[in-house]
């Protein structure tokens, strides 16, 4: 193998599994250390810079970081990254003074944002400090988009949404609430310099089985519409028998909300087994903890209607299988079951819909009904129109909407500053030795043996009384500290200098997880097998040094390195050093470099 080019900013970035997996590349270990140190405001601001909604995401994020966490590869459970983020938000004191200064003198450029969800709010956050004037439109009365309309208050209290949307609106955004944009053409005629579409994926999927027309909108409702009505207090009760169709997170929110609105028999009806559900494992866990049955292999067949009212639903029992090519197979068993229901909530997916964008404006759409959008720049085929969030590439989650908002903001800024939108600014990086004394590091290098801490919950009986009472109580400072100590500090990198190495083997011998090997060089596949413990996890890179004195190379399998620093402590020549790697994705306004690095 060729020696690893650690100058490439992506190499060490890749080693920080959580940060790499986070769509917004939040510097996770850095803020976790700050939480352990009780520096909650600093931890909050680091988050805020990257993901804009630490308090919201600390409760609701899809957490792609956690399955990526290295800790999950050396023991069962990853660090509770998401819940630690919430600690920073919960325990911080006032951070208003640390928000960016907004120039009084504007730059004369005006941008319209359609939809006040996380994507648009991120664009506003990034462009306001640069002097842009921003008009924000939303069809509903308050900011937050689906975070407010869909995510139930028992998972995400309103005050958190108010606070974090507030930081952005307070920058001087001109907002137009209760204002649905009905025509893109009309908006473009208003002489905006750029337009950002962050309207989400607003329409729930229908399930038109026999008798659907008779009960659509009454006995059968779209989950997303029903949740929005609950959120805005248009609906405050549920009938006794409620069936929720679907196995995603929307289904979980629907059934738990119905339970809190007075339903007695709430059931989740799956077409698949539980193992094939799309909902996040923790959502399923919480649903089951509230005693809601999840029934497997029920294929919806027919709505049963009497006197114009829904009374039950018929299902065909099926056998579920996955074919060799990965497609799902549903084999009917012929058995039919009828289950009482006076309300059926459909949670089987969302669609994008842009009836308000005229088709002759130069904004091209694909077969999926989505605008043709460059997935790196988020620019549409009409150069001054950009998309982001669920409206751009289909429904995903908040953190993705935020990440796309950041990228779109960069593009809008480049575009309006007459720079190439394709020319992406490189990340800011630096490496700093953590050496304090011969064997002392400025990070806590010891590896905690603690298991993942459980988040305390409100007592079930209390929690079910109100749809507004938050179920999770969050970590207190003690639990937070213990959990923070589980973080392996993967951003503190093992940095190797080949010409200092005397090949004494000390590092190889001490490494508790056998990630180091000195061996004659070879091609990657061979090298991976030759290591002290073969490197079977192909997702994790090998570090290969320049040739050593004996012509061998130092190889490090990054897979399960504990970042314990022992290799560097035992190295007599400091050929290994522990250095903190700072990786900050570029924001709108940072100047582009010549070389483009793909994240």
């Amino acid at each position, binding site marked *: 193998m060729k020696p690893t080019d650690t100058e490439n900013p992506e190499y060490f970035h890749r080693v920080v599994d959580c940060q790499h997996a986070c769509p917004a590349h939040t510097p996770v270990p850095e803020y976790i250390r700050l939480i352990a140190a009780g520096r909650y405001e600093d931890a909050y601001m680091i988050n805020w810079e990257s993901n804009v909604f630490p308090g919201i995401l600390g409760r609701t994020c899809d957490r792609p970081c956690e399955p990526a966490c290295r800790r999950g590869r050396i023991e069962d459970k990853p660090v509770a990254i998401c819940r630690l983020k919430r600690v920073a938000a919960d325990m911080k004191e006032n951070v208003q003074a640390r928000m960016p200064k907004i120039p009084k003198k504007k730059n004369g450029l005006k941008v319209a944002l359609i939809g006040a969800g996380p994507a648009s709010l991120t664009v506003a956050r990034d462009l306001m400090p640069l002097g842009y004037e921003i008009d924000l439109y939303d069809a509903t009365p308050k900011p937050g988009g689906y975070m407010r309309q869909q995510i139930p208050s028992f998972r995400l209290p309103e005050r958190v949404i108010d606070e974090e949307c507030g930081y952005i609106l307070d920058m001087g955004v001109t907002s137009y609430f209760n204002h649905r944009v009905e025509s893109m053409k009309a908006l473009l005629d208003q002489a905006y310099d750029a337009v950002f579409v962050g309207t989400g994926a607003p329409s729930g999927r229908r399930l038109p089985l026999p008798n659907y027309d008779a009960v659509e909108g009454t006995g059968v409702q779209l989950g997303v519409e029903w949740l929005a009505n609950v959120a805005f207090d248009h609906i405050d009760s549920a009938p006794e028998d409620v069936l929720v169709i679907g196995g995603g997170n929307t289904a979980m929110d629907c059934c738990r909300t119905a339970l809190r609105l007075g339903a007695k028999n709430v059931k989740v009806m799956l077409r698949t087994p539980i193992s094939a559900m799309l909902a996040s494992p923790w959502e399923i866990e919480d649903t089951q903890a509230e005693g809601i049955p999840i029934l497997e292999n029920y294929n919806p067949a027919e709505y049963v209607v009497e006197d114009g009212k829904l009374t039950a639903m018929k299902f065909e029992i099926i056998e579920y299988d996955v074919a060799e090519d990965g497609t799902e197979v549903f084999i009917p068993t012929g058995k039919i079951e009828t289950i009482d229901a006076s309300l059926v909530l459909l949670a089987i997916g969302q669609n994008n819909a842009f009836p308000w964008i005229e088709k002759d404006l130069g904004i091209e759409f694909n077969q999926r009904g989505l605008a043709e959008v460059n997935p790196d720049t988020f620019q549409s085929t009409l150069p001054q129109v950009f998309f982001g969030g669920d409206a751009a590439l289909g429904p995903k989650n908040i953190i993705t909407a935020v990440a796309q908002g950041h990228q779109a903001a960069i593009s809008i800024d480049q575009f309006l500053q007459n720079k190439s939108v394709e020319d992406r600014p490189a990340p800011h990086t630096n490496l700093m030795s953590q050496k304090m004394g011969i064997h002392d590091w400025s990070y806590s290098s010891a590896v905690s043996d603690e298991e993942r801490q459980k988040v305390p919950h409100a007592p079930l009986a209390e929690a079910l009384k109100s749809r507004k009472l938050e179920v999770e109580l969050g970590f207190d400072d003690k639990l937070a500290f213990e959990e923070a100590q589980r973080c392996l500090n993967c951003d503190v990198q093992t940095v190797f200098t080949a010409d200092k190495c005397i090949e004494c*083997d*000390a590092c*190889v011998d*001490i490494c508790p997880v056998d990630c180091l090997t000195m061996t004659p060089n070879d091609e990657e596949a061979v090298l991976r097998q030759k290591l002290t413990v073969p490197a079977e996890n192909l997702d994790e890179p090998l570090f290969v040094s320049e040739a050593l004195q004996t012509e061998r190379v130092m190889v490090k399998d990054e897979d399960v390195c504990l970042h314990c620093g022992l290799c560097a402590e035992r190295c*007599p*020549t400091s050929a290994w050093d522990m250095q903190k790697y700072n990786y900050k994705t570029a924001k709108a306004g940072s100047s582009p470099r010549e070389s483009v690095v793909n994240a």
Partner: protein
Amino acid sequence: MSYTVPSFRHPNLPRNELGYTSKDYEGAVSTLCAGCGHDSISAAIIDACFQMSIQPHRVAKLSGIGCSSKTPTYFLGNSHGFNSVHGRMPSVATGANMANRNLLYIGVSGDGDTASIGMGQFVHAVRRNINMVYICENNGVYGLTKGQDSATTDLGSKSKKGDPSPYEPIDLCALSLQLGATFVANSFSGDKDQLVPIIQAAIAHKGFAFINVISPCVTFNNVSSSTKAYDYMRQHMASTNTVDYVPTADEITTDYQEGTTERVTMHDGSYLNLHKLEAQHDIHSRRSALKLMKDYGAEDKVLTGVLFIDETTQELHEIMKTTKTPLRNLTEKELCPGADALEKLNNQFR
């Protein structure tokens, strides 16, 4: 400074026949200087014992005084140990071995511990062919007492703060050969590929197995003027052979070229496959070994590898026809058969 090593190990760590991983053969965290050759030797002992599926509780580690003699704390944490007095490890090993012949005895010493204060003890242990592995971690200095030249320091070799040594060195391999040692090897802490199988072979050997391991002292003697430095060894090391230790259970699948590979069958049925790098050498000849060492020495080369082996000898218990039962398993009556028995015994010699 870390005084503990994290408890996590690689999830795919291989297991040996006993179901143990190498972690089960580790000891406490080393307190030696970072980069000390002795630590590599500890790691090699761990690896050898792991690979041979040795039951840790069937091992006794013995040592004298010195940085080298401290190392038994850093390997085989689940084994027995006796950290004795400076230079006195051979007596303790002899006594322990006499009392219980069923354990594996691994003695660790230094060049000071062996070639100076312990010389009188060492030579008798060799001569008696005690069934043990004796590893001398040879760095050419008294590391623990801050780097004074030892009796193995080569003529003219100069440590970090010293003068060139004015004396001829004691060559512990040559001495062992002359004293009748039945297994003699020379190796280098910086070459585990060679060292680990040598330790395995020494463990499999019945009788006194001596391994001299050049083990650089990074703090006092790893300088360009020293012949016991990493650089010097890398530039001057030559090998008689490479060894593969083949446990009985393993089927022999590799065909070695006739004439270049010699197979030595050990008393327990395991094999050593010796791949000759030096065609002249006869592994069963002391004279050949001594001559070759001299020849290489004359060319400023350090000859390593298994230098000599006699797999057919009798170890001390066999020579003395002692009981097969460990003393601790004998009753008082058996241990102390009384005045009549003594009388009978004495009469044999009258």
